[in-house]
């Protein structure tokens, strides 16, 4: 590592430690920011000599990154940005903090994927999905797919692990030269993780025609773009690998969505030569991811936190939550997106029959939505009020990004 990079890396680590000591966050952003000021190529320097995997997509990237890091851990030490700091400053901090490791698995914000591919020269990139998320400031999803596609076309040697169920991802993973999906490019491995959300992919990104669906298959009515056959799939509480072998996956994380994330993690790890047989037990050791799924005892209630930040992840959260009193909390601050329109893209009917409480900056938006949805609810001002309003036992909490952070902070104050 050049001297400048060494200094920058050391400053980055020190700043992160200072930031933590001062109680100002976990330091995973400020340290990287300072380091990059001193050496703009620091991320590239820190990446050199490591075998790197990048994980990107709208949903599931934090959890998939955590599971993939556990799986690659079979081979040796793995650097990873486990606090969900998924922009270049976060990657820089994570690599600096980890010191020299043979492997790194990094979660990447979808807007930064092109830039981070350039900087880190990854061995493999996992593309999970593209759906609407914070549209008031994010690029349109089709444009995002185009950016990914351009970036990947510039790096034909990068191995790709991609979601066969998402037309935008399939298109992005396929170089422009091989429109015909019958010919899978040599470096793409397809997985199918059981995607539920389809509303963003009715129009073909290649030709603008309608995309038809039947069962799990989909195809464009105007060009050869169609669902490739996935090599990794989920089946009956387990994952099937490309040889057809089935592995039972016993997770501590809830829901079918995390079984799907496990399939992706195993497919990614296989690109480094990790056998599913060796990796599966490590997936079961993962208990929570950046506070998500964590269970906390509070006044005789077992509180479980689920993060849901866009329509696709709300559907997953309903699947994960048990039949128990449920608190929904909605904010619309900058990190959440300022627009709450997406609430009408979520069907809250699965919550009927439970005690439902609502809170957060934008609880009234949610109130109007639940009213139209025929879901009775009770509005509470604070998290504490919610805990008091439910009987002892389980309380499921589903919140979007800053609302989730607020509740985590609230729980940390006492526990």
């Amino acid at each position, binding site marked *: 590592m050049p001297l400048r990079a060494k200094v920058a890396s050391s400053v980055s680590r020190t700043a992160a430690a200072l930031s933590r000591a001062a109680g100002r966050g976990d330091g995973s952003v400020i340290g990287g920011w300072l380091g990059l000021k001193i050496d703009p190529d620091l991320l590239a320097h820190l990446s050199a000599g490591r075998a790197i995997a990048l994980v990107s997509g709208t949903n599931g990237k934090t959890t998939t990154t955590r599971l993939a890091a556990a799986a690659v851990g079979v081979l040796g030490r793995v650097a990873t940005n486990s606090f969900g700091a998924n922009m270049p400053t976060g990657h820089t901090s994570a690599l600096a903090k980890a010191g020299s490791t043979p492997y790194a698995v990094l979660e990447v914000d979808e807007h930064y994927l092109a830039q981070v591919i350039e900087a880190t020269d990854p061995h493999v990139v996992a593309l999970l999905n593209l759906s*609407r998320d914070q*549209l*008031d*400031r994010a690029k*349109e*999803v*089709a444009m995002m797919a185009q950016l990914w596609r351009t970036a990947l076309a510039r790096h034909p040697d990068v191995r790709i692990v991609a979601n066969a169920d998402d037309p935008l991802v399939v298109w992005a993973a396929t170089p422009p030269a091989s429109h015909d999906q019958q010919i899978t490019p040599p470096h793409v491995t397809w997985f199918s993780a059981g995607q539920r959300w389809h*509303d963003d992919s*009715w*129009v073909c990104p290649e030709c*603008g025609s*309608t995309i038809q669906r039947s069962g799990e298959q989909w195809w464009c009515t105007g060009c050869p773009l169609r669902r490739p056959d996935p090599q990794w799939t989920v089946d009956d509480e387990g994952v099937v690998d490309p040889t057809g072998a089935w592995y039972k996956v016993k997770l501590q994380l809830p829901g079918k969505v995390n079984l799907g994330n496990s399939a992706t993690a195993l497919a990614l790890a296989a690109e480094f030569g990790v056998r599913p047989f060796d990796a599966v037990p490590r997936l079961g050791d993962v208990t929570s991811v950046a506070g998500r799924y964590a269970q906390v005892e509070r006044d005789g209630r077992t509180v479980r936190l689920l993060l849901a930040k866009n329509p696709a992840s709300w559907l997953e959260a309903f699947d994960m939550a048990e039949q128990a009193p449920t608190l929904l909390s909605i904010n619309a601050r900058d990190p959440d997106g*300022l*627009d*709450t*329109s*997406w*609430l*009408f*893209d979520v069907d809250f009917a699965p919550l009927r029959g439970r005690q439902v409480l609502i809170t957060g900056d934008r609880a*009234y*938006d949610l*109130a*109007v*939505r639940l*009213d*139209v*949805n025929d879901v009775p609810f009770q509005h509470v001002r604070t998290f504490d009020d919610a805990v008091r309003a439910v009987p002892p036992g389980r309380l499921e909490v589903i919140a979007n990004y800053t609302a989730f952070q607020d509740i985590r902070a609230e729980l940390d104050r006492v526990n």
Partner: protein
Amino acid sequence: MSTETLRIVWIYPDLLSTYGDRGNMLILARRAWQRGFRVEVLEVRSDQQMPTTADIYLIGGGEDGPQALGAQRLLADGGLHRAVAQGSVVFGVCAGYQLLGTSFFAKGTQYRGLELLDLSSDRGPTRAVGELAGDIDARLGLPPLTGFENHGGRTHLGPGVSPLARVTAGIGNDGATEGAWRGKLLGTYSHGPALARNPALADLLLRWATGAHQLPPLDDTWADRLRAERQGAVAAARA
């Protein structure tokens, strides 16, 4: 209303549904049903023929490609034009509002609109993103409009339409006026579930569709609180 049943069509949800547009259909249907109307809602996909006899047609927002495709399909189908000629109500939001005009821009190209409203849209210098508020045309007798806008377009009204509102916050058509209406056709940049924040506007569409001069009031406690909160946020941002 031609029959006992109020028929609501949501036009091309496969193309034009980017921002919670389903909400407008759900809200209209529920408010009609609470007044004792029988309601039939129909989601018509872009590969299906457009029915010509529904009472209310809803067109939602969409990205550039789907917007252009939607306009092309609706022009080729002709069903919506026949419905309008027979007096149906049309409510267009964002891209769906632009579609109702004579022309609009998508992906840098000018496209022909449905020519149902005398207005045309082009690209503005900046993207309009944020709270949108305005005082609605007094002839419509509605409380102020509140919504959220997210569009890159600017819309120029011709003499054949009236602005829906005078802008008090946000951009709308051009920073001065917002939306447009003529007869029983109405469009707005208040995107997505615009009717969630404007139940009185939902009732206006229902009155147009049913011919009722008045509709029994409903419990709008939560919508009223939401409106007050948003109006407060707009006022606070201005102070």
